[in-house]
């Protein structure tokens, strides 16, 4: 029987939750890396036992961890080797250094700071890890301050995909409340050269040539919190999702507004429809129904909790505009948690499972595409991210 493995990154460590295909009884292991913030964990589609994790701390900086046994044991790639006594460090593990312009040695660009002045890029942490669809040793990292890095040696060493920051709009990027973070990386199995990324608060971008050249794909977005609501750059995109079998159809949860694009981001249209509020962070697509999408509406940008204290997922089976409330098994009142941008995932079992985690430490599962929900765990630290692997 198939089984699922849920990877939950929290404010105080990582947890691995496993169940068989019924998804009604769960084993919980962890915390791994107790006391550290785990912004994201994700398994390789090529080798599901290969899992990458972003471990970060205000004290000790950024660590990348890797498991090759499905999350049972972990090591720092490149950190396990013990050189001979007296040998200097090789300068590899966990090192994220922004590219500089080779001729001048100067930074590629600066970005806009909170006060409107220009500010140099400063690496803070890895928000998102996206393993390659074709090679278990290749993985992308979306980082703060916003940039895209790639490793081709199993996360031992990292190199910036510098075309993104270097394409010209960098000086207009500005940090959102959570920092200037690159939080979404989408790989296209139909075209390995096509990559989508999203940044708060710059917007969405696409490359069609494997990362050499990038273009902003924000036409159609309207954001009333920036001077020009229809500007090419400056939109606070919270998350973007794409069904792997329907490349080019993108769904976006923006700061406010739920959006869709049918042409790889070249033009967006709003599909918030009858949502009670269209502010939120997560968005995801059903594993077998490319027009069925999920969001968790949050009251507002000033009040990051469910409307009326009632936790609800909303589902659209029409690719947006027409939404239905899904609340069976979710707290009907007095619930004031948030669901962060990387904290929703779907499995690919026949009856598609939907998962999300909350800042209150709950991880919820629906084994029937959202109709009924149950908590897998109640009392984890605040959940930063949720991913799920469907295993044979």
């Amino acid at each position, binding site marked *: 029987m198939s089984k699922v493995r849920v990877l939950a990154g929290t404010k105080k460590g990582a947890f691995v939750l496993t169940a068989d295909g019924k998804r009604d009884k769960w084993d919980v292991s962890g915390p791994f*890396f*107790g*006391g*550290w913030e785990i912004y994201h964990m994700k398994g390789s589609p090529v080798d599901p036992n290969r899992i990458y994790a972003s471990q970060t*701390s*205000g*004290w*000790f*900086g*950024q*660590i990348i961890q890797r498991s090759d046994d499905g999350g049972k044991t972990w*090591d*720092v790639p*490149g*950190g*396990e*080797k*013990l*050189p001979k*006594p*007296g*040998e*200097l*460090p*090789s*300068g*590899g*593990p*966990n*090192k*994220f*250094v922004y590219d500089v312009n080779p001729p001048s040695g100067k930074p590629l660009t600066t970005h806009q700071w909170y006060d409107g002045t220009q500010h140099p890029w400063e690496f803070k942490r890895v928000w998102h890890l996206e393993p390659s669809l074709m090679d278990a040793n290749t993985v992308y990292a979306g980082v703060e301050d916003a940039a895209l890095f790639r490793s081709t040696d199993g996360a031992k060493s990292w190199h910036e995909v510098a075309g993104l920051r270097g394409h010209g709009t960098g000086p207009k990027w500005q940090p959102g409340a959570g920092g200037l973070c690159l939080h979404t990386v989408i790989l296209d199995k139909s075209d390995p050269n096509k990559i989508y990324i999203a940044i708060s608060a710059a917007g969405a971008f696409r490359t069609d040539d494997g990362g050499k050249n990038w273009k902003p794909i924000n036409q159609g977005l309207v954001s009333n919190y920036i001077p020009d609501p229809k500007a090419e750059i400056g939109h606070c995109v919270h998350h973007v999702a794409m069904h792997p079998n329907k490349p080019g159809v993108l769904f976006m949860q923006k700061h406010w507004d739920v959006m869709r694009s049918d042409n790889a981001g070249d033009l967006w249209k709003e599909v918030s429809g009858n949502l009670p509020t269209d502010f939120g962070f997560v968005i995801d697509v059903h594993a077998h129904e490319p027009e069925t999408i999920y969001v968790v509406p949050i009251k507002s940008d000033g009040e990051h909790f469910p409307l009326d204290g009632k936790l609800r997922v909303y589902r659209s089976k029409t690719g947006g505009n027409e939404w239905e409330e899904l609340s069976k098994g979710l707290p009907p009142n007095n619930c004031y948690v948030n669901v962060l941008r990387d904290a929703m995932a779907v499995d690919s079992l026949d009856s598609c499972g939907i998962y999300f985690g909350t800042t209150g430490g709950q991880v919820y599962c629906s084994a029937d595409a959202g109709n009924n929900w149950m908590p897998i765990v109640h009392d984890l630290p605040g959940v930063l991210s949720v991913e799920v692997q469907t295993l044979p």
Partner: protein
Amino acid sequence: MIRVVLPPHLRTLAKVGGEVEIDVAAPVTQRSILDALEACYPMLEGTIRDHTTKERRAFLRFFVCAEDWSHESPDAPLPEDIATGKEPFFIIGAIAGG
């Protein structure tokens, strides 16, 4: 042999229990200790000092013979008690957070 006491999170990361003992070539300084430490435990690279600038991370302190040496030159020779291993070199995480 130089003795180094790591903060608990870094002991876990380095998969060590108590103190760490490392060989450090003379002169024994903060820099030479940290270079040797990172050579033996590469997973600690970047956790104590910035990868590139080698500056101490802001929320860490270096204690030597009951004194805070965090703001001393990284190349200043450390006391004999450190060099001989009589006293450990402490790497301390600032008390903060929740």
